[in-house]
């Protein structure tokens, strides 16, 4: 069999997670190093919590776990996981950005981002010029997840906060990715990441065609082989590939 020779040239994985199981985290770091992924934007995996609306104490602990991981592995950059329903959600967001050096905010399924309750958290992100990664479903027929954001919720958020840097998560995480990218086409402050398990041929090309290569970001969502396969197989220019793998993420952080 052909030997594995892949070097992603210092790629940035803008959406991945850690688990309480350090064996998993170490394996993720090992694979990332082997493939040339230099930065991992990490938040605690929501499935490792007790529910989708975890209590404040649990979220603090989870974020501290990410902080410890970032001290151990230079590749790890923290995203503060926030449950907007918690009374101290804003305080937590500020603390982890200012005191722990986290570089972004992660919102999961406690509440849709079209709800005004998320606004104070977004204001903190905008003030500190950090991106907000929003877990998003792209289902045509959402039935069982009433608090899960969809592209329409992302639209609402982006229009309320034109200065916010919003990452619509994993267009290839399941669902109708053609529909998803079309709904945020005109919102220049919305980026999409190509994480997730779906290996549909043409998904990366379609995102680039609709949004342009400046608004598409490389991500694994911990599913490394599928993500690397997508970006390496995609029929796009080398210039676009480099932007997606690295340059766009650096621009979001103001490092380019």
């Amino acid at each position, binding site marked *: 069999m052909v030997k*594995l020779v892949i070097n992603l040239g210092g790629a940035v994985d803008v959406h991945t997670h850690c688990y309480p199981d350090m064996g*998993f985290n170490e394996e993720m770091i090992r694979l990332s190093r082997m493939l040339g992924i230099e930065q991992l934007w990490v938040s605690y995996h929501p499935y490792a919590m007790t529910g989708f609306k975890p209590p404040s104490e649990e979220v603090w602990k989870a974020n501290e776990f990410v902080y410890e991981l970032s001290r151990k592995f230079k590749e790890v950059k923290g995203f503060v996981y926030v449950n907007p329903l918690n009374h101290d959600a804003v305080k937590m967001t500020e603390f982890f950005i200012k005191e722990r050096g986290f570089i972004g905010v992660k919102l999961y399924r406690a509440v849709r981002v079209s709800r005004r309750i998320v606004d104070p958290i977004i204001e903190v992100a905008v003030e500190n010029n950090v991106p907000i990664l929003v877990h998003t479903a792209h289902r045509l027929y959402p039935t069982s997840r009433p608090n899960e954001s969809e592209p329409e919720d992302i639209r609402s958020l982006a229009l309320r906060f034109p200065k916010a840097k919003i990452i619509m998560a994993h267009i290839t995480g399941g669902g109708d990715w053609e529909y998803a990218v079309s709904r945020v086409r005109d919102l220049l402050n919305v980026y999409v990441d190509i994480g997730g*398990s779906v*290996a549909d*041929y043409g998904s990366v090309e379609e995102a680039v065609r609709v949004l342009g290569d400046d608004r598409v970001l490389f991500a694994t969502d911990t599913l*490394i082989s*599928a993500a690397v*396969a997508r970006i390496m197989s995609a029929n796009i220019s080398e210039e676009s590939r480099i932007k997606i793998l690295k340059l766009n993420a650096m621009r979001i952080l103001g490092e380019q």
Partner: protein
Amino acid sequence: MIDALCMSGTYPFRYLSMSTEAVASKLALEGFRHCVMFNLTALFHRDPWWANVEFAKEDPSVNCTIHKLAVFNPDYEDKLRIREYSKMGYVGFITSPIYHGYRIMRRSVISNLIEALSNGAVVILNLLEDLRQMHRAYSFRYRIMLGELNDALMTLKTTVKRESGEFRVLLSHFPYNDLVNLRSLYNGDIYVDFASSQVLGAPYSHIEELVKLYGASRLVLSTGFIMKYPKSSILKLQLSKIQDKDKEAISSINAGGLYGIRT
């Protein structure tokens, strides 16, 4: 490497279309020397005959040798047509998606599957329809039920082994959980691939587990291209923690045995 299952043609549920030559050329660039291909258009016709006839005529000159599978609606065929497909050069058959309305244990279906098996390999395809774009109420009913699949495999194996001795069946695009659960029902010979997104995209050691369940000699590498990026399966295999000799078998030797391809 041998790609144990890929496809050309047009997928009707989103914009996706590629010629046979383009598919084989892309696979050649990925390192495949052989690929086993069927025609997507035929898959979505209730009667796949004419699309199969057209596909049989295609003979592009590319660095990846194409071995063809006839799409086969086991509820619609008859023995004469199955033999005609073999004369056209097809090395095997791939079943139509179950939403064409058949039940795999129906007597006529089993009879046609037995005839197909005596004329080549048979690929039982799990739903290729894009489940994620369907309403859950509809998508569920199109799944192949494992109990019924087990019964069918047992019947086919017993009959075919009695008559010709060769039982070459590949289960393709089955989700990991189905493959695990099937093994507790059916313990006989069977080939499986890992082309389902639920295996390709999983962060877990699914390849290692499938090797334990089915044996390294029974896994094959299917890309599912053009539905999926071809590197997905390759990378999944390369990054798995199984022995190099097993990777070698999975990437070429096993598919060679399944389809009778000499490498």
